[in-house]
C-alpha cells in the first residue's frame, strides 16, 4: 500500500487541538479549503452577477438613471445616476473575468474538487496540503486585487475579459491591476492543478484502479491537466502585456500606430494577433475547464438517482481524455475573422467538428443512462436533468460558430453571448447547484429543505431561459455584443423588445436565488441530523462519518468494485458500496 505513510502522518495530525486560525483560516484540511473556496467563489459569483444586473438596466433603458444604486455611485461611474460608457465597459470586462476566473473555476475545481476528490478516491487529504492552502490564498489575493481595481484612476479594466491588444496595452491603469490579479489567479490554478494530478495518481485507496474512479474524479483529472498545460500561455502573455504597459516593450504593438491623431511612442514591431493566439490557447481549454467538472457532477447525480450504472462509463472516460487532448487544437476558431487563410481556417473548422464528437458521446451516454432506471427526483437530480437540454442548447449553438461561414455573420454578436452562457450558466451553474444540494448533507451533516429547493429550481430554470434565449434571436437580428447602447444601430432598435425581456429575467433570476440563500444558511442550524448516506450512494465519500473528520476515514478503505454498482441482481440492497469492509 503506497499511501500508508501518508495515512500515518495525517491521522496523527488530527489528534492535535487546532486553534481557530489554524482550523478555519489557515487550514490545510482539504475539506475546509474546499468550503473556503466554495463560499468565496459564491460571493464572487454573486458580485459578478450584480455587475451584470446594472448592465442589464443600461441595455434595457439606455441613458436612464439606475434605480437606487445609481445614486450611490461616484461621478466617475455615473452621470446623474445614469451609467457612463467607461463604466459599462468596466462592468463588462469585470463580469466576464470574475465569473470565469473567480467564480466558476474556483467553485468547480477549488471547491468541489477539493472537497470531493480525496473523499472519493479514499485518501486522507490532498497530496500537498500546504500547497493547497497557498493555492487558496493566491486566489483570494488575486480576487481582492481585481475588486480593488475599480478604485484605480480610470476605474477597472475595460478591454473585455479577452483584453485584446493593442486596446488593452493603451488602456487606463485598471488594466495593470487586472494583469497582476490574473497572475495571482493563474498561479493559484497551477498550484491546484499539480496537487490534483499528484493526489489522484498517488493517493488512491487500495483497490481503487483507474477504471473504478467515479467519473467526477476523471473529470477533475482531465481538468487539472488542462489547467496545467494551458494557463502558462496566458501567464506568459500577461507578463508580456505588463511589460508593454510598464517597461516600454512592444510585444503586441505593431509599428506605425496613430492613437487619437498622435503617433505612438512605442517602438513597434510587435503583433496584436500574438496576444489572441496566446489568449485563446488558454481560453479554449478554459471553456472545458468550466464545463467538465459540471459534467462530472451531473454524471454522479444521475447514476445515483436512476439507481443503475452509468451507461457507457468507459466510453465516457475515453471521450473525456480525447476531449482534453483535442481542446488544445481548436483555439483559432475564435479568430476566423482575423484574416486567416483558407488552409488555417479549414484546419480549425475540422478540429472543431472533431471535438464535438466526444462531447456528443458524453452527453448521449448521460441521456441513455436514464433508460431502464428507477428515477427519483430530489432537487439535485432536477438540476442535473435540466443540465442536459441546457448544455445541449449551448453545445448545438456552437456548431454554426465553429463553421467559418456562418461565423462571418454571427461572430461578436449576441448569439455568441447566448451560446456560451447556455454552456456556463444554465449548464455549469445548474451542475454546481446540483452538486451543492447533493453534497451539502455530507459537508454539514444537515439536509437542505426540498420544497425551497424545488422552488429555487423551477424559478431559476424559467428565468435562465428568459435571459439567454432572447439573446440568440438578438444575435440573429445582427445585434453586436459589448455595446453600451444597442439602440444606436437599427438592428438593435428592431430587437429592443428582446433586450427588455432578457433584462427583466435577469432581475427575476436574482430574486429566485433568495430561497436558495435562505435554505443554505437556515439548513445549517437545523437540529435534526442528516443520515450518513442519504442518497444510498456507492462512492467512498458516503462511507465516511458525517461530516468527515480530519483524515476522513477512520481506517483506510479497501475498494472492491466499480463506482456505479446499483441494482445489482442478487445483491442485498439496490446499491453495493465500493468499499464494504475497511482495511486495517
Amino acid at each position, binding site marked *: 500500500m503506497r499511501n500508508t505513510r501518508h495515512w500515518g502522518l495525517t491521522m496523527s495530525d488530527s489528534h492535535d487541538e487546532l486553534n481557530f486560525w489554524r482550523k478555519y483560516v489557515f487550514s490545510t484540511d482539504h475539506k475546509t479549503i474546499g468550503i473556503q473556496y466554495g463560499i468565496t467563489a459564491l460571493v464572487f459569483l454573486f458580485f459578478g452577477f450584480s455587475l451584470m444586473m446594472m448592465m442589464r438596466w443600461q441595455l434595457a433603458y439606455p441613458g436612464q438613471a439606475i434605480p437606487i444604486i445609481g445614486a450611490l455611485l461616484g461621478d466617475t461611474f455615473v452621470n446623474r445616476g445614469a451609467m457612463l*460608457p*467607461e463604466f459599462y*465597459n468596466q462592468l*463588462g470586462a469585470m463580469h466576464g473575468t470574475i465569473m470565469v476566473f473567480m467564480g466558476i473555476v474556483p467553485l468547480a475545481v477549488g471547491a468541489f474538487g477539493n472537497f470531493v476528490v480525496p473523499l472519493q478516491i479514499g485518501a486522507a487529504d490532498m497530496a500537498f496540503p500546504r500547497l493547497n492552502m497557498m493555492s487558496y490564498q493566491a486566489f483570494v489575493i488575486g480576487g481582492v486585487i481585481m475588486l480593488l481595481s475599480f478604485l484605480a484612476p480610470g476605474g477597472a479594466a475595460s478591454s473585455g475579459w479577452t483584453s*485584446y491588444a*493593442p*486596446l488593452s496595452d493603451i488602456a487606463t491603469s485598471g488594466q495593470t491591476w487586472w494583469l497582476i490579479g490574473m497572475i495571482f489567479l493563474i498561479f493559484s490554478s497551477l498550484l491546484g492543478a499539480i496537487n490534483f494530478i499528484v493526489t489522484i495518481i498517488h493517493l488512491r485507496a487500495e483497490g481503487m484502479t483507474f477504471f473504478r474512479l467515479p467519473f467526477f474524479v476523471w473529470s477533475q483529472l482531465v481538468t487539472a491537466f488542462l489547467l496545467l498545460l494551458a494557463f502558462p500561455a496566458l501567464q506568459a502573455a500577461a507578463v508580456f502585456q505588463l511589460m508593454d504597459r510598464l517597461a516600454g516593450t512592444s510585444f503586441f504593438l*505593431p509599428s*506605425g*500606430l*496613430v492613437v487619437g*491623431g498622435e503617433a505612438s511612442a512605442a517602438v513597434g514591431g510587435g503583433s496584436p494577433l500574438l496576444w489572441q493566439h496566446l489568449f485563446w490557447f488558454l481560453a479554449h481549454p478554459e471553456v472545458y475547464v468550466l464545463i467538465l467538472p459540471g459534467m462530472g457532477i451531473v454524471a454522479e447525480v444521475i447514476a445515483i438517482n*436512476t*439507481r*443503475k*450504472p452509468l*451507461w*457507457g462509463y468507459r466510453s465516457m472516460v475515453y471521450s473525456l481524455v480525447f476531449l482534453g487532448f483535442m481542446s488544445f487544437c481548436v483555439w483559432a476558431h475564435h479568430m476566423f*475573422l482575423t*484574416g486567416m487563410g*483558407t488552409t488555417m481556417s*479549414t484546419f480549425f*473548422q*475540422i478540429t472543431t*467538428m472533431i471535438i*464535438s*464528437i466526444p462531447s*456528443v458521446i458524453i452527453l*448521449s451516454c448521460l441521456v441513455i443512462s*436514464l*433508460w431502464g*432506471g428507477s*428515477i*427519483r427526483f430530489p432537487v439535485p437530480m432536477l438540476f442535473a*436533468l435540466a443540465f*442536459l*437540454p441546457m448544455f445541449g442548447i449551448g453545445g*448545438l449553438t456552437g456548431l*454554426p460558430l465553429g*463553421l*467559418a*461561414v*456562418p461565423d*462571418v*455573420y*454571427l*461572430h*461578436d454578436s449576441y448569439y455568441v453571448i447566448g451560446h456560451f452562457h447556455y454552456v456556463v450558466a444554465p449548464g455549469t451553474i445548474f451542475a454546481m447547484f446540483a452538486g451543492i444540494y447533493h453534497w451539502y448533507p455530507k459537508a454539514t451533516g444537515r439536509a437542505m429543505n426540498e420544497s425551497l429547493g424545488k422552488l429555487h429550481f423551477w424559478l431559476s430554470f424559467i428565468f435562465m431561459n428568459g435571459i439567454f434565449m432572447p439573446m440568440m434571436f438578438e444575435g440573429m*437580428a*445582427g445585434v*453586436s455584443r*459589448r*455595446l*453600451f*447602447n444597442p439602440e*444606436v444601430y437599427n*438592428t438593435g432598435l*428592431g430587437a429592443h423588445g428582446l433586450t427588455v425581456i432578457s433584462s427583466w429575467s435577469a432581475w427575476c433570476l436574482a430574486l429566485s436565488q433568495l430561497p436558495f440563500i435562505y435554505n443554505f444558511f437556515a439548513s445549517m442550524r437545523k437540529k435534526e441530523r442528516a443520515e450518513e448516506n442519504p442518497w444510498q450512494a456507492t462512492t467512498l465519500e458516503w462511507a465516511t462519518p458525517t461530516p468527515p473528520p480530519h483524515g476522513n476515514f477512520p481506517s483506510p478503505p479497501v475498494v472492491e468494485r466499480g463506482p456505479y454498482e446499483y*441494482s445489482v441482481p442478487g445483491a442485498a440492497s*439496490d446499491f453495493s458500496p465500493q468499499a464494504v469492509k475497511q482495511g486495517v
Partner: protein
Amino acid sequence: MKDPQYGWWLPPDVSTNGWVVDQLLAIIHWFMLALFVGWGIFIIYCLLRFRAREGHSAVYEPIKAAFSKWLEVGVAVAEGVVLVALAMPAWAAIKNITAEVPENPVIIRAVAEQFKWLFHYSGKDGVFGAIGSEFISTDSPAGVDPDDEAGYDDFWVYGLHIPVDRPVITRLSSKDVIHSFKIPVMRLTQDAIPGLEIAVWYQATDTGKFQVGCAQLCGLGHYEMKADFVIHSPEGYQAWLDEEHAALGFDDE
C-alpha cells in the same frame, strides 16, 4: 429600393454572397432543432416511463450491446455528415467569397480609428497615392503621401458609398486598435487590425441606405462607431463621385 426592416430575425440581405450564409444558417438550425427535439422526446419519455414507483425497479444490465453499438455508430455518422455535408460546402463557400477575385471591381480603402470609419477613394485616376502611417495628419487622415501625384485626386469620406451590381473590394486597416467591419445586410464581418491590410469583397444586389458598424470592442466610443452605408444606382454613384470631385476643386477638368 429595399425598405430596411429590422426585427427579431435576420435583417434583409442585399448581397450576392449572403444567401450562402443564410442557407447554412437555416440548414444548421433545422439540424439542431431536430436533434434537440429528438433528444427532448427521448428524455421526457424516459422520465415518465422509468420514474421510481411502487413495483418498478431499475435494470442493472446495460442496454443490449447491439443497440449501443448502433447508437455510437449513429452518433459518429451524424457527426461525419455534419463534417462532410456542412463543413466542406461551407469551406467551398468561403473560397467563393474570398478567393475568386472579381472583375472590374471598385476598390475602396477603409481605415478604422477610434471611433469612426474613414473611407478612402482613389479618385478619377483609379490609383491610390502612396500610403504610410507617417503621413497621417489632420489634413490627411488617410495617410496619403502629399508628394505622390497619384494621391492628388484621392478623397476620403466618413460614409461608405458603393454602386449596386458591381463587385467592391474593401482594403481594411486600422490606425490604432482592432476594430471589426460589420455590415449585417451584406452578411459581412472582418476584423481591421493595425499593422495589417486585409481585403474583403462583396457585391450589392439592391440600392438602399444601411449601416456599417464596428463589431470589436475598441474603447469608450465603440458603441457609436457606425457609418452610413449607401448603395447607389450606377448613375447615382457616378453623380456622387462627381460631386466629391467637385468638392476637391477638380471640376475644371
